[in-house]
């Protein structure tokens, strides 16, 4: 099952990319000066409004057109990551806006500069609030990697379809493949739930 490796690797790469870039974009979306904020808003809204499959196909054909030679795998990771970045950024903004403004004020009043206010006061609280939607985004990414099969990446779904074509055990392979996805995603949501419990510090 080499397909499983491609599924896990593309998921992990996309999730890491989306988490890092999404939080940065979320900061721009929340605290940026007006031009930056509008640009971030545009990115977030456009990428959330276009189907993932279209983004993947567009990236795959588009990158080649502009002479950027990347494999289908990386084109897919870029598209998936870019898509999830928009979701993470929006989740970040939502999480931050649910933190009472007094938190930022108290951090200001003890003289913490902006970066430290983010790091020690806003982010620890935002991350906990972001966790449930972040897990959902991660699930969407894992499921979204099946779309990479359409641009020829031999991930789990395409690998099992190729196996079916060889030995005609269609139903068995679909059920097995489904079970693998359920196993991955169920594990992800359990980890998410556990983290959530671990980071609960207030009932407010």
């Amino acid at each position, binding site marked *: 099952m080499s397909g499983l490796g491609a599924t896990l690797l593309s998921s992990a790469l996309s999730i890491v990319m989306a988490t890092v870039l999404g939080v940065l974009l979320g900061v721009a979306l929340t605290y940026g000066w007006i031009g930056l904020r509008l640009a971030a808003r545009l990115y977030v809204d*456009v990428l959330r*409004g*276009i*189907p*993932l*499959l*279209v*983004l993947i*196909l*567009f990236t795959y*054909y*588009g990158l080649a*057109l*502009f*002479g950027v030679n990347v494999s289908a795998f990386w084109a897919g990771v870029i598209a998936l990551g870019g898509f999830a970045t928009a979701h993470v950024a929006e989740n970040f903004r939502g999480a931050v806006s649910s933190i009472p403004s007094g938190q930022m004020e108290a951090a200001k009043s003890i003289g913490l500069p902006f970066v430290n206010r983010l790091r020690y006061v806003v982010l620890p609280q935002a991350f906990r609030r972001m966790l449930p939607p972040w897990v959902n985004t991660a*699930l969407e990414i*894992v*499921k*979204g*990697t*099946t*779309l990479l*099969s*359409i641009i020829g990446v031999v991930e789990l*779904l395409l690998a099992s*379809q190729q196996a*079916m074509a060889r030995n005609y055990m*269609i*139903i068995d392979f*679909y059920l097995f*493949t*489904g079970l693998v*996805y*359920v196993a*991955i*995603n*169920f594990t992800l*949501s359990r980890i998410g739930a556990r983290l959530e419990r671990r980071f609960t510090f207030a009932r407010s």
Partner: protein
Amino acid sequence: MIDYHFDWTVITRNAGFLADALLLGLGLAVASLAIGCLIGLLAAYARLSRWRLLSGAVWIYVELIRCIPLLLLIFFLYFGLPELGVRFLDKFETFVAALSIYAGAYMCEVFRAGLESIPRQYVEASKAIGLRPWQRQRYVVLPVMFRITLPSISNNLISLFKDTSLAAAIAVPELTFAARQINANTFRVMEAWLTASALYLLTAYAIAIALRQVERRYAAIR
């Protein structure tokens, strides 16, 4: 090759094709939402039922669907069901079936949350005026729940519309399929995908704006 020369005539020449594709996608989304809502509503009541086996079964359905990729479900119904002797569905029906099953699980969660959030007083008041159980649901609980869940229903319609792009994988000629055809036949990569992206984006926004009007109309209840 940064000096790409746009040739939008491929789009204008295919305008009718694209329009049909867009409408087909919308139709698929609406049909799936309708069936999905029906499944979701029944499933939500089942989920809240006192019969543990029933609510457990629905829980498994919802959790499974949350974990299984839509494309896998589509392929399973399209390639797998015939193996089991189910051959009466064409690709359109297969796709609507897959998307409805998918939507049903998400709508089940929406409706369950909606049903649980209805204040107990409404039910008690409707008991007090002597409504029978099904009348309480029909005239009090469901209308209130519908208003509470309307924003979620809108969001689901938009994401279902975006999900119709997956129908391209079984050659249903909706927008993504159309864009791919144009891309393949003319090599006008940018025109094809920019147009498809813009159409999805505009339609999603149009749906959002239209449904916000509906929400505003029914927002009387808080």
